[in-house]
């Protein structure tokens, strides 16, 4: 049977029916990666031998009559800024080119316990800093829908791998939209959970108060399955919440009749591509057809979000990236005779331009004399943005809008202008600043045949509501397009 392109439940049906084996799924997937990835560049490391070994082990378990676990036999790709024990984790940076973590991220550990097969590590923007995946030290990722376009960033490899069926699901990380933007650009589902919903232990930190690991999947149901596995309190992450984890899969069923869908006018202002606007509005009307109630809401501080985000994220990053000093792991510049020289050359040779730019900006906004004017100010504006959502959610249950102002842009189009690149995140960073969950689902194609993403936001820890609405839409209006590979 054709096992490429299956979702988790279809794959499990096939395994249960004996129509395929985990080993076969694994082999087919590896073959497809071998065939397609040289053009795409989605993977940095393919976990070939270990994946096959584990597949055989899982097949033996199944042959012994063990029941399927939630992700048994599911080939999962992991963004290369999430630590995998014994498997190179580079963050797409020269400074970690040879780093082999001695431990698994909690999310990875939970995927493995659920029976998943770790098929490989995906390319991304260096240290998750970027919106196009052009900042990887190990090459760009091409959009499966159009090889001349970006897949979105920073989890571009994860987005492209899922879209191109090089895996069933992938993990990305989302600091300012890094799961949702590639999902939108690649025509797949991307979920950023509530801050604290998924453990950050083992996720290499970029902006610690904003980072969340999230799934990139072909369907909303798959996102629910993966979230169910990776969510929940982790004693290794002090910011992970002990809020109960509901059965997200069970929560998918049910009406969205009467759900109040807030439309913030700030998400439809200047800068939004007309085609994207039209497709997103069409989707909103479809939600109304499904029984949702459309309400006007305001998020008045949206226009300050990018400024706020780039101060907070870079401030935290400047500190988070101080540990890459060539002392304990990773790249070390050769031939330095003093420590100072070793430090400076290691960091200069090891980091790429965007990372350096953000370290510089973050160092600047925290430095003596500028802290109050920039960093503290941004923290206060962050409070205002969170209040915006609180007030909006008093009038609605979900907030809807485009994921990105444009469809996937051309490679190289924005690399010369960092600020223009930052503006791609305009609709996604709000959720990170407020700490709320958000999902991007594909709702249509542009005339050029590029996917357009719609984004839904929910209140803190209301992923179930988010997934139910997205699932209802997906069931009624399935996105059946496939990239021309």
């Amino acid at each position: 049977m054709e096992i490429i392109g299956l979702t988790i439940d279809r794959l499990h049906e096939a395994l249960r029916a004996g129509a395929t084996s985990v080993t076969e799924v694994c082999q087919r997937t590896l073959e497809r990666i071998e065939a397609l990835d040289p053009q795409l560049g989605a993977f940095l490391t393919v976990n070939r031998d270990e994946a096959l070994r584990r597949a055989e082990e899982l097949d033996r378990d199944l042959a012994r009559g063990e029941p399927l676990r939630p992700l048994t036999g599911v080939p999962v790709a992991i963004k290369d800024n999430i630590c995998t024990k014994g498997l190179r984790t580079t963050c797409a940076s020269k400074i970690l080119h040879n780093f082999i973590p001695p431990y698994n991220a909690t999310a990875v550990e939970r995927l493995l316990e659920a029976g998943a097969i770790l098929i490989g590590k995906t390319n991304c923007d260096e240290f998750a800093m970027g919106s196009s995946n052009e900042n990887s030290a190990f090459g760009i990722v091409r959009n499966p829908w159009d090889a001349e376009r970006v897949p979105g960033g920073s989890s571009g490899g994860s987005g492209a791998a899922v879209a191109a069926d090089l895996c069933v699901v992938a993990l990305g990380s989302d600091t300012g939209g890094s799961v949702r933007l590639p999902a939108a650009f690649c025509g797949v589902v991307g979920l950023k959970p509530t801050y604290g919903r998924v453990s950050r232990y083992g996720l290499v930190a970029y902006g610690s108060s904003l980072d969340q690991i999230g799934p990139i999947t072909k369907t909303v149901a798959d996102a629910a399955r993966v979230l169910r596995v990776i969510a929940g309190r982790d004693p290794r992450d002090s910011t992970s919440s002990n809020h109960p984890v509901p059965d997200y899969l069970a929560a998918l069923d049910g009406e969205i009749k009467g759900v109040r869908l807030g439309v913030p006018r700030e998400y439809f202002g200047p800068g939004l591509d007309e085609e994207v606007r039209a497709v997103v509005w069409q989707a909103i009307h479809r939600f109304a057809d499904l029984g949702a109630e459309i309400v006007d809401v305001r998020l008045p501080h949206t226009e300050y979000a990018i400024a706020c985000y780039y101060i907070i994220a870079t401030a935290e990053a400047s500190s988070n990236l101080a540990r890459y000093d060539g002392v304990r792991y990773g790249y070390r510049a050769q031939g330095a005779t003093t420590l100072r020289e070793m430090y400076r050359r290691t960091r200069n040779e090891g980091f790429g331009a965007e990372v350096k730019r953000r370290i510089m900006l973050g160092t600047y906004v925290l430095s003596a004399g500028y802290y109050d004017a920039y960093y503290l100010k941004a923290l206060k504006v962050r409070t205002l943005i969170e209040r915006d959502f609180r007030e909006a959610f008093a009038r609605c249950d979900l907030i809807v809008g485009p994921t990105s102002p444009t469809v996937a842009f051309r490679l190289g189009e924005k690399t010369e202008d960092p600020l223009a690149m930052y503006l791609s995140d305009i609709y996604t960073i709000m959720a990170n600043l407020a700490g709320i969950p958000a999902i991007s689902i594909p709702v249509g194609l542009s005339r050029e045949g590029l996917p357009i993403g719609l984004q839904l936001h929910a209140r803190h820890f209301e992923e179930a509501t988010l997934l139910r609405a997205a699932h209802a839409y997906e069931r009624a209006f399935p996105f059946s397009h496939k990239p021309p590979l």
Partner: protein
Amino acid sequence: MPITKREVEKIAELAHLELTEEEKEQFTVQLAAIIAYVEKLNELDTTDVPPMAHAGRDERADYAQRDDVVGEGLGSELALANAPDPARGYFRVPKVIEEG
């Protein structure tokens, strides 16, 4: 507040980055543009607004503490497994010379 090349050099020093002349010029221009953009925040009056430094939503995160129990660590061999220059059970680095 326009950013000067002198400031770029100072920040690079703080961040332990050794920038080339070209990078310095480029960053001066780019950071100036970004800083000019983020000045936008000054349009907002935030006098009585508390800063939001933590994104967690739990009021009392007592459970976020651990008991004083010794657990299994990596041990020295694994600790040094990724080291660029391990020697005698230590991480070796070029001589630390105090500045000043």
